[in-house]
């Protein structure tokens, strides 16, 4: 979900990342304690919608993000419908959606580098334990950066298997993917060294 930043100059964009992060945590806490109450989750959903409008003023963008949650909703809803009945199933799913929407809004309005700065600041006390906050921040950046790369590698590998007349399978793709990932790690560490990053 992180890395979806969309630029803008709404008040939500301007709010400090630390403040926003705290607000998101508070939001999730409130929902997990009282979110079963239809009044609470209905207000939360409305407020989430209102915040989206403040940030982007775009109903389609709100709906698009809501739509990305469809599988999550299905996966959560079905077992609850079976085991807990309609009422609790709806309550639980609605509060989950209200929570996630605001988390998405956080990543939509905060550039990743700002999120990482906030994490690094929060991790400053760890410096006394010998863990460099900048290393933590860099690790997060690199992990997030690796996701699209690995996806690109695996689709490339499957494609080349198909091109050679094989049915692509997770099993046969594993070894080449591992090799590609190790090579990527190697190249990346060289690129970091070339840019003067100390780890």
């Amino acid at each position: 979900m992180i890395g979806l930043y969309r630029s803008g100059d709404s008040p939500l964009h301007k709010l400090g990342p630390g403040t926003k992060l705290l607000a998101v945590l508070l939001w999730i806490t409130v929902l997990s304690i009282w979110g079963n109450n239809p009044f609470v989750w209905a207000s939360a959903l409305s407020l989430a919608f209102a915040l989206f409008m403040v940030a982007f003023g775009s109903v389609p963008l709100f709906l698009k993000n809501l739509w990305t949650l469809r599988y999550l909703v299905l996966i959560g809803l079905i077992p609850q419908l079976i085991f807990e009945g309609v009422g609790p199933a709806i309550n639980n799913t609605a509060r989950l959606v209200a929570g996630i929407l605001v988390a998405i809004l956080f990543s939509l309005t905060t550039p990743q580098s700002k999120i990482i700065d906030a994490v690094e600041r929060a991790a400053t006390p760890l410096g006394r334990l010998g863990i460099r906050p900048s290393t933590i921040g860099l690790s997060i950046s690199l992990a997030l950066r690796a996701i699209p790369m690995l996806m690109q590698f695996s689709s490339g590998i499957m494609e080349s298997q198909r091109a050679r007349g094989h049915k692509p399978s997770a099993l046969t793709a594993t070894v080449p993917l591992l090799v590609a990932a190790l090579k990527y790690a190697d190249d990346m560490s060289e690129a970091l060294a070339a840019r003067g990053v100390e780890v």
Partner: protein
Amino acid sequence: MRISLDSVSVEWDGNVALNRVSLDLDQKNIAVIGANGSGKSTFARLLNGLVKPTSGRVLVGDTDVQADPKTAQRQAGFIFSNPDLQIIMPTVIEDVEFSLKPRKLGTTETSALARAALERFGIGGLADRRAHELSSGQKQLLALAAVSVTDPKLIIADEPTALLDLRNTQQVAEALFGLQEQQVVLVTHDLSLAARCDIAVRFEAGQLIEIGEPAEVIARYRRDYE
């Protein structure tokens, strides 16, 4: 800056990648050519300390690269062939800002410097785009912006246009040859780019076999393979 190698060898478990190379260069744009595996990348990497000489000495400016790798790294920016490997942050502007992070400047100053660097390479309009969604040529321009924003004195580009089409190659070449402040070491198989440099260096099987006027070095290189 003066780049000088004094009897430099590089070996990988007994295999010789560079064999007692000595040279002196101070031209603005320096082309490095030669067959695959001839030692071009090894030479390029020596200049910013990514590779250590097995023997001999590498001087770039006043810096002994092996003795002071930090300065060597700081004074030289490096561009790789594969632009995907150089992008670290998700958006274009953040990736340039990332280079400035060690300087601990204020947010406004950092972002102003980053934006100016993007403008210099004609990609100011892409500042907020996701970096991995750019075209390969735009990614290389981003890499150039990210590397030059810290004002290195030298830019080393190892086959920066290898993965680019003609148009993107032109753009990246214009950007490289347009650099005002930096000396450029350009490793390339694109002989028309090599021809535009002030001097050409040719390696073959780990040996430095020729340094001189690009047109002449290139002509002999072609002849040897025809």
